[in-house]
C-alpha cells in the first residue's frame, strides 16, 4: 500500500451561517466580503507546511489539485504549489502527486507537459502526473470550455502531452482543438518514458473505460466514503478493467478518504466534528445541477447517472447530516488509531485500493490540529496498512525510483 496526503487548500474561516447567507461556495462567492488577501496567504503557507510535514512524517506522496473561483479549495495552479513541495522535499523519498493540472482548461496543453517536466526535473524524478478532466464548475463555468467538448478536448490534450514528452523529433500537431506548428518542449521529464499517470474521477463509466484502456491508475475522489456509491463503482471499475484485458492489480485504483485520528474515539469527535460538518455543509455548498452541466457527461454517463440517482441523493442530503451521520455512513473515518486503521483496511480490501490518499486537513481545521492528525496517522495508522498487497503486486503507477523494492535494493 502506498499512502499519499491530499490537501485542498480551503478557506478555513467561513462565517458560521455561510451556507444560509451566501451563494454557492463555488463560482460566485464574493471574495472581498469573505476573505482577506493576507490571511489567504497564510492559508497557502499552512497548506505547504502541512504537506511538507506529512512528507517528513512518512507520507509516500503529497497531492495538490486545481480548482477555480471558490472557497472550497483554491489552488488555481497546483503546479505552483508542487514546485515548492518538490524543492522542500528534496531529501525525502516522497512522490509529488499532482492531481493535478486540468487538461481541458489549459491552453495550449503543452503547458502542462512543460510544467510537469519541470516538476519531474526539480524533484529528481518523483512526479506522479495526474490528468484530471476537471469539474464542470471549473472548466465549463469558470474557464468557459464547451461542456460537450470537454472529454474530447481532454483526450486530445492527453495525446499531445504524451507525444510532447516522448517524441525525439520536432513535430507538428494538427488536432481538432489544438494546432501547433513545431512542438519540441524543454525540459523533458526524467522518468522514462514518462511519469506515471493517474486519472482522478468521480465514478463516470467513460473515465473507467479510458483509464483501463490506457493502463493508468484510476483515482476515485469520493467524499461519500466507500459504503454507499463506492461498491457499485468498484464492481463496475474492475469489470471494465477485465473487459480491457487488465489484471486486478490493486494499484490500478486510488481512493481518497477523509481521515481524523485522535487518542480515542471520543476525543476524535471533540477534535473533528465541527470541521467535518464545516467541510460538508459549507465546502460542498454547491447546487446539484452544476455537477451535471448539460454536456459535461456524455449521453451514456448521463443516462446512467439519471437512472441511478444515488450520487445525486448523497449530495442533496448533505446539509441534513451531522458528524455522527457522516461517521456512520463512512463518509469520514474519525477515531482512535485502532478504529481508523480497521476501517481503512476494510475500505482498501473491499474496494481493492492500492494507492490510498488521505485528506488529513478537513475544512476549518486549524494548523496545529492538522499537524496532530498527520503525526498520529503516520505513527499509529499508516505502518499497519503499508504491507497490504505488498507481496503480491508491484505498484507500476509509482515513480520507479521511489518503489519500495527499488529503495530496499539501494539500501542493501
Amino acid at each position, binding site marked *: 500500500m502506498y499512502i499519499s496526503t491530499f490537501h485542498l487548500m480551503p478557506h478555513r474561516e467561513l462565517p458560521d451561517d455561510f451556507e444560509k447567507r451566501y451563494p454557492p461556495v463555488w463560482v460566485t462567492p464574493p471574495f472581498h466580503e469573505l476573505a482577506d488577501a493576507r490571511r489567504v496567504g497564510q492559508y497557502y503557507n499552512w497548506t505547504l507546511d502541512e504537506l511538507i510535514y506529512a512528507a517528513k512524517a512518512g507520507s509516500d506522496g503529497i497531492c495538490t489539485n486545481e480548482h477555480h473561483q471558490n472557497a472550497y479549495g483554491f489552488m488555481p495552479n497546483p503546479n505552483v504549489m508542487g514546485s515548492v513541495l518538490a524543492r522542500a522535499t528534496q531529501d525525502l523519498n516522497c512522490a509529488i502527486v499532482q492531481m493535478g493540472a486540468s487538461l481541458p482548461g489549459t491552453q495550449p496543453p503543452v503547458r502542462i507537459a512543460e510544467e510537469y517536466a519541470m516538476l519531474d526535473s526539480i524533484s529528481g524524478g518523483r512526479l506522479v502526473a495526474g490528468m484530471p478532466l476537471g469539474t464542470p464548475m471549473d472548466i465549463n*463555468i469558470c474557464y468557459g470550455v464547451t461542456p460537450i*467538448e470537454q472529454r474530447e478536448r481532454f483526450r486530445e490534450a492527453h495525446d499531445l502531452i504524451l507525444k510532447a514528452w516522448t517524441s525525439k523529433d520536432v513535430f507538428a500537431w494538427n488536432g481538432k482543438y489544438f494546432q501547433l506548428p513545431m512542438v519540441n518542449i524543454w525540459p523533458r521529464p526524467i522518468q522514462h518514458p514518462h511519469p506515471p499517470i493517474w486519472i482522478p474521477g468521480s465514478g463516470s463509466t467513460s473515465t473507467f473505460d479510458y483509464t483501463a484502456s490506457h493502463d493508468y491508475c484510476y483515482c476515485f475522489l469520493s467524499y461519500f466514503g466507500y459504503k454507499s456509491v463506492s461498491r457499485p463503482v468498484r464492481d463496475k471499475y474492475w469489470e471494465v478493467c477485465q473487459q480491457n484485458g487488465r489484471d486486478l492489480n490493486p494499484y490500478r485504483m486510488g481512493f481518497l478518504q477523509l481521515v481524523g485520528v485522535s487518542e480515542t474515539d471520543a476525543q476524535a469527535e471533540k477534535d473533528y466534528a465541527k470541521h467535518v460538518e464545516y467541510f460538508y455543509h459549507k465546502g460542498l455548498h454547491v447546487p446539484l445541477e452544476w455537477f451535471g452541466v448539460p454536456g459535461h457527461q456524455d449521453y451514456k454517463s448521463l443516462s446512467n447517472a439519471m437512472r441511478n440517482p444515488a450520487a445525486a441523493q448523497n449530495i442533496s442530503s448533505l446539509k441534513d447530516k451531522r458528524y455522527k451521520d457522516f461517521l456512520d455512513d463512512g463518509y469520514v473515518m474519525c477515531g482512535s488509531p485502532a478504529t481508523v486503521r480497521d476501517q481503512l483496511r476494510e475500505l482498501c480490501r473491499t474496494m481493492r485500493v492500492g494507492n490510498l490518499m488521505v485528506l488529513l486537513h478537513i475544512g476549518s481545521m486549524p494548523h496545529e490540529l492538522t499537524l496532530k492528525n498527520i503525526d498520529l496517522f503516520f505513527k499509529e495508522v499508516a505502518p499497519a496498512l503499508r504491507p497490504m498487497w505488498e507481496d503480491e503486486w508491484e505498484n507500476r503507477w509509482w515513480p520507479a525510483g521511489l518503489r519500495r523494492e527499488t529503495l530496499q535494493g539501494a539500501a542493501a
Partner: protein
Amino acid sequence: MTTITDRRVSVWQDKIRSNVKVAGSGPPLVFLHGAGGLRWDPFLDLLTTRHTVYAPEHPGLTEGEEDAVSHLDNLWDLVLYYYELFDVLGLKSVPVIGHSFGGMMAAELAASNPERVSKLVLMCPIGLWRDDAPIPNWMLITPASDMVKYLVYDPAGPLAQQMFGTPDPEMQIRLIWSMACTGKFVWPIPDKGLKKRIHRIQAPTMVLWGKQDKLVPAVYAQEFAGRIAGATVELIDQAGHVFATEQPERVAALVEDFLR
C-alpha cells in the same frame, strides 16, 4: 388530430441521420426548435392547416443517434448541415420559423445564403448580446425547478404544470441532452458573431417576442429588427419565452398572416 410522420434523413456524408417531423398539407415551411428540444404543440398543429410543416430534430436529439452532434464542430458546420438537409427535403427556398436557439439558426441560415430562406420568422431568438441586458445561461439555472419561471409567463398556471409538473428521468435525460447538443454551438455566451452577418438577411422578416420573456428580454426584439431591413416586430402580451405554446392561436394567426 394531425398526422405527424417521422422521416429519417441521412446527410453529412451519411454520418448524421436525423429525424424530421412532417405534418400538414400545402406549401412547405421549416420550424427550428429551441434548446429544450422539439415538442410538437398546438401552435405547430395550427400551422399544418395551411402548410406542410417540416420540423427537424437538432443533430444528436434523434433517438439512437445521440453521437451525431460530434460530426459538427462549429456553427459553420451546422449552417452547412442545414442546407444539405433542405436539399434532401427538396426545399430550395422556404419560409423558416425558428424559436430561441432555432431562431438564431434561422437567422444564420438566412444571412449566410439569402437564397435558401424565402421568409423569416424569428421567435425570441438568441444570437445577439447586450451587456445591459445579459441573457442568463439557461444551462446553469439552479435549482432546475426554477427554469419554469424563466420560460412561462404564469409559472403557477396549468401550462407550466403541464410542461414541468412531473419530470420523469427519461424526460430529464432528453432535456439535458438537448441543451448539451444545442449548447455546443453557443456555450458559454450566445453571441457567436451574428451581428457581423445579420445585415445580409434579405428575406421579409417578422420578429415575435413574449413581452414578459424573462430569459431573453424583449429589448432584443428591436435589437434584431433594427438590423434587418424591413423587419416588423410583434410583442405578445402576457407571454414569456414559450409564447407560442402559451398563446398558440394568436401566434399562429400572426404567422399565417405574415406568410400569406
